[in-house]
């Protein structure tokens, strides 16, 4: 039953890579977008903290 499903009527080598490519691109875009957002938020936080310290010191 499962093997028959995975065979995709003999088109397995075309069907599964198609779904895999879509998943890979969409999950990849999500992960890089989240990572960039987190990294930028961290940089901004550091910069703002440094600016505040400089203000206090002045």
């Amino acid at each position, binding site marked *: 039953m499962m093997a028959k*499903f995975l065979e*995709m*009527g*003999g*088109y397995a080598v*075309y*069907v599964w*890579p*198609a*779904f895999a*490519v*879509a998943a890979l*691109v*969409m999950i*990849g*875009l*999500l992960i890089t*977008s*989240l990572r*960039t*957002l987190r990294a*930028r*938020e961290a*940089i*901004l936080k550091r*910069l*703002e903290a440094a*600016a505040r310290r400089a203000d206090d010191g002045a």
Partner: protein
Amino acid sequence: MSQRRSGSSLHRFANPSRFLRLGRRLTPWFAVLAAAFIGAGLYVGLFVAPPDYQQGESVRIMYVHVPAAWMALFVYSCIAAASVASLVWRHPLADLIARASAPVGAGFTAVALITGSLWGQPMWGTWWVWDARLTSVLILFFLYLGHIAINNAFDDPTRGARAAAILAVVGFVNVPIIKFSVDWWHTLHQPASVFRLGGPTIDLSMLVPLFLMALGFTFYYMMLLMLRVRSEIVARKIRTVQLLQAAP
């Protein structure tokens, strides 16, 4: 001030901090809707929908190929609309929306091209053919890449955004060419079978998973747009802080 208060609702959303709040609230909803619709689309597309009487099980590639191709055109249209808003009204969020969208659209276009190739080999006997539909979609992919490159090619981000916006508006001519390429030229690609005069020609059992996936992909784009625009706003803030520190 009074003018701003009486301004259109569009203007209220032009305010980045308002957008940040809205985006933060909407992102989880878009994520849930995207997962639900894509999950349902995968289930119906893989387990419930019948094999095609000519193409057999290979027809299931359609459930990623067609929604990805629709999104490739939809995201580009969003970029073109945002670019008009940026060039005409200097809408402060429009540049960020265009910039945040381009890599997502390029991703969908790549998925459409690769899955199309994987479908073409068993059905047409070739991975690729230089006909109007395939070539115009390849041009769309290069337009996306050009948009990303131009956007980053200037030291001043507003100049990069302007140049990219002009490219996006001029390149929009490609969108109707893609849509009608299957009617205007001889091609191996099958003609429109969903959005056509006289209604869809494909069966409901295949239309349902197709639309479930298309809705899921749309919500996925919305979710990513919220995240990526937020990211662009943070990047602009970083730049502002750095410029202030460099010139005390």
